[in-house]
Structure formats: structure tokens, C-alpha cells
């Protein structure tokens, strides 16, 4: 019986973990996609080439991270996570995403967050909290 309960708790917590990870992935992904519209217009007029405005893109990423994390279950302080997020703007492709090492062919904004995840049932056996690391990048777009 205890074994059965343990297996049940593992299944529930792992499913919740995967769901949380998916939510976080969406949050980071959409934040970078939104920030990928921050084109450096002056640079574009001066060179004819597209690249991102690093300051604006970084600010947009943090803002939309915070918005996307706000209200998400298990995220008590979204602003803190957004403020602690790693954000990089890559303007000289080809290059690799510094967090996922994915190949970037165009200017892109890359972000990574670390969010603690607290297990609900596995805590009974001492496994209480794990850190979830989620990264995403988005190339320049409108």
C-alpha cells in the first residue's frame, strides 16, 4: 500500500512539474517574442541592416516575463524572478544562444529564468523543492 501511494504521489508531482515547466516555457517564450520587435530603427536607417535595440529589448523581456509570470501558480514573486532573469541580445549572427546553445541566424533576444518548484506529495519523503531552469530565444520580427 505505501508503495502504491508513493507511486501515485510521484506521478502527480511529476505531472505538475511538467505542467509548470510548460507554463514557464510559454512565459519566457512569449516574452522574448515580444522583445524581438524592438528593432533599432536608427541603426537600420544608418546601415540598412536589422538588429535589436539591446536596452529596449531587455526591458521588454523583463516586463513581459513579469506579466506572464504574474498569477501563475507556484510563483509567489514574479518581479523577483523577472529581475533575476538572464537576458542577452545577440546582434551579430551567426551565433549561439548563450543559454540553450541553439544556432541563431538573425539578431535575437535570449532569456533564461530559474524558478523554484515545490513538490506537493514528494515532500513527504523529503523531496520538497527543485529549481526549474527555462530558456528561450526569439529572432527579430515585427
Amino acid at each position, binding site marked *: 500500500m505505501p508503495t502504491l501511494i508513493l507511486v501515485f504521489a510521484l506521478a502527480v508531482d511529476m505531472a505538475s512539474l511538467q505542467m509548470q515547466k510548460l507554463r514557464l516555457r510559454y512565459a519566457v517564450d512569449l516574452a522574448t517574442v515580444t522583445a524581438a520587435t524592438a528593432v533599432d530603427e*536608427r541603426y*537600420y536607417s544608418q546601415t*540598412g541592416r536589422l538588429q535589436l535595440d539591446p536596452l529596449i529589448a531587455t526591458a521588454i523581456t523583463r516586463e513581459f516575463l513579469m506579466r506572464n509570470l504574474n498569477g501563475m501558480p507556484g510563483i509567489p514573486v514574479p518581479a523577483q524572478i523577472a529581475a533575476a532573469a538572464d537576458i542577452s541580445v545577440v546582434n551579430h549572427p551567426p551565433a549561439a544562444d548563450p543559454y540553450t546553445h541553439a544556432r541563431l541566424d*538573425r539578431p535575437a533576444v535570449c532569456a533564461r529564468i530559474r524558478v523554484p518548484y515545490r513538490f506537493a506529495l514528494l515532500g513527504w519523503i523529503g523531496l520538497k523543492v527543485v529549481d526549474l531552469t527555462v530558456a528561450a530565444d526569439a529572432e527579430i*520580427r515585427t
Partner: protein
Amino acid sequence: MKPGSTPMKAVLALGLSLALVTSAATNSHGLNGTATTVSITAVSGFAGHAFVYAQVSDSTFTYPAPTGTGHQSPFFSEWVAESIASASCPFIWAVYVFDRATNKQINAPTPDAPSPNFGTTTIRCASPSASPVDQPPQVDAAARLDLDLQVTVSPTMAAAGSPSVVSAVLSSALTEDLNLYLSMAVEEWSVTSWSVDFGDSQVTTLNGGVGTSIQVPHVYQAAGGYDARVVAFISGHAQAAVYDRYGTVHLMRRPFSVEVGNHAIATARTRPSRSYWPPRATVGVVPYLGMAIGGPPATAFRHIDGLRGALTSLSVELLIVREAQLAIDGVSQGFGRSRLTAWRLDGPPSDAPAGSGTTPGVSHSAGDLMRLQWNSPDRIVGGQPQDYLVPVTLFVETRFPDGHVASYVIASSFSVSVNFAAESG
């Protein structure tokens, strides 16, 4: 045909020929029993020289003071030989002239006349050559007027279409016989008109008060050698003075006309070929995603990135690859200055929303912005992205160093890379 008409015609022909051979005017006049002949020969020439020869002949000349008592002149003279201490003139004739009516001397010297004073103003060294008494009478007196005409064309070699000047200068030399018995003079001659044949079928005539030199501007329109001919038409009078036995002069005035011509070679070389080489230029664009920022930037681009789905404003600029050139006879004489006056978007319309994009086929002024949008990324052909090619027609105006302004229409294009949409990793 009437009998005897042939001899009549022959006589007429002979008379006409004689009249033509000599242009002289020959006249005979009786002057108190003397036979005087005045002849004028005016020889026209068209190689730069002409002359007028006038001659008076009096075969029955008489001395001014005839002997005998049949005729008495109003004056009489007494000749007195005076010895003077001179090696060249040992003695002189002192001539005392009196009025026969009053018996008073008419050539008395003034009281303050310098010495030696012989009581007369008429003294003459008694030598055979200087004494009028001993001077042999002359039966002929002549005058000759030589006319020389010099014609030049300046510059000698000019470009066809550029101005030249045909100049003519008439010079003259006059010799006359003026003596006691007969005199012949040429006077009051002048150029009545000039005729200038430029040699290219154009002729100019200058009439009245034109002097003895002319300068006529002319433009030879075609290359080649031209024989410019100038003729001066001259008229005047020759006047003979014949003295009768009483010393009375009789003037005989005869008109004459003569033509003197000359020519000069003018060469008009081929008009220099003036070539206007068009500029080599392409279109360049400066992209803007929002409103245009500030003034025109320094650099325009032939290739730009396009942001997919974004309405992009493009400032159309003229990129000069090689500026227009002015060449004369194939040698460059300087560069022109080209500027864009208008442009036209060719090709298909872009993906811009209706009413917001630039319509192809419509000309726009140089300062107008081109508005384009690309909603699809580059096509992939052979595994490689194929950039958009935007054809543009440029309307260029070029001002050359000589002030010539030319307009050119230049077909050009620029390319746009539109990449795929954003990807999330």
C-alpha cells in the same frame, strides 16, 4: 540680209573692241589754238594691285611769256643779274615783276626782309636747271595712282561654326607731274563700295563711307578651305592743268573708276565633336521603420534587410558610380553634376496595405518616400534564399561644365532580404 551690212557690223565691232580694250577717256580740246589731250587708263586688278594712269599731252606747247607784241600779258618783268659770293651759285637773277597797267612792282620785299636785299622777293640762281626761262618745255605730264589691296582672314584656321574676320586694307601710292607748263593730278578718289565673297556662297556688299579698310565678321558653318575674295570699287577724278601763253590755267577734269581685288585662303576645320557621356548611376535607398529621422543620411544602400510584415519607408537616393563627363574631340573636359529629379517604382505592387504603399508605374519627385512591405520571407531557390528585387526607374538631370543640361532615364534596382519569422528555441 541687206548688202553692205557686213562691213557695217565689222566697223561697229572694231569700235566696240577698242572701247573695251582701253577704258581710257580720251578727249581733245582746243585751248586758244593748242591741241590738248587728256587720257586716263584705269586698269583693274584682282590679284591685289590696280592702277590709274592719267596723262595730258599738249603738242603745241608755248612759253608762258610769248615774244612779240601781238599779245600783252597783264604783267611784265625785268631780270637783273646779281653777283653773289657763293661757290654753288656765283650769281643770281633778281626778277622784278610789274603791273603793266599801273607800272608798279608787285613783288617788292617788305622793309624788314633779311639781307641780302635785292629789292625783290623773286630771286633765282642762274643755273640751267633752275631757271624757268631755261627749263625745257614739256609736252606730257602724267599722274599715276597705284592701289594695293591686302586681304587677310583671321584666324587663318578656325573651327567651323566659330567666328572669323575677313579684313581688307587698301593702300595707295600717288605720283604726279606738277610743272610750269602741264600738270596732271589724281584727286578726290575714294572707295565707293566693297564686295566681299566669303567663298561659301555668301556675299556681302558694303556701300558708302566705308574708308580704305574693312573688317567683316563671318562664320564658316562647314569645314573646308575657302577662298575669300574682296573687291574695292573706287572712283575719283584726274585733273589736268594746262597753261596758256598768258599763264592762265585751264583745268580739265575727268572721272575714272577702277576695281582692285584680292583674296585670302580661310580654312575651317571640323567642328570639335562635343560628347556628353551619361552618368552611370544606380538607385540607393535609406530605410525607415517609423518616420524619417533627421536630414538625409550620408549613405544609401543597394541592399537592405526587410522586416517582414512591416511597412517600410525608403528614401530614394542616386548612387553615382561614374559621374557624367564632357569630352571634346574625345578628350575629357570635366565632370558634370547629376541629381535625381524623380523616380518610379516598377514591377509588381508590394504587400503594403491598400492605400499605404507606393503604387508602381507612378512617377514621384526626388524627395518622396517609397513605402513598401514584404509579408513573405525570401523564396528558397536551390536551397538558397532569393532576395526581393525592387526595380526602380531613375530620372536624372545632369549639368555639364559648359552649361549644357541633359536628362537621363536610368533603370536600376535594389534588393531586400526578408528572413523567416521569429523562432523560439
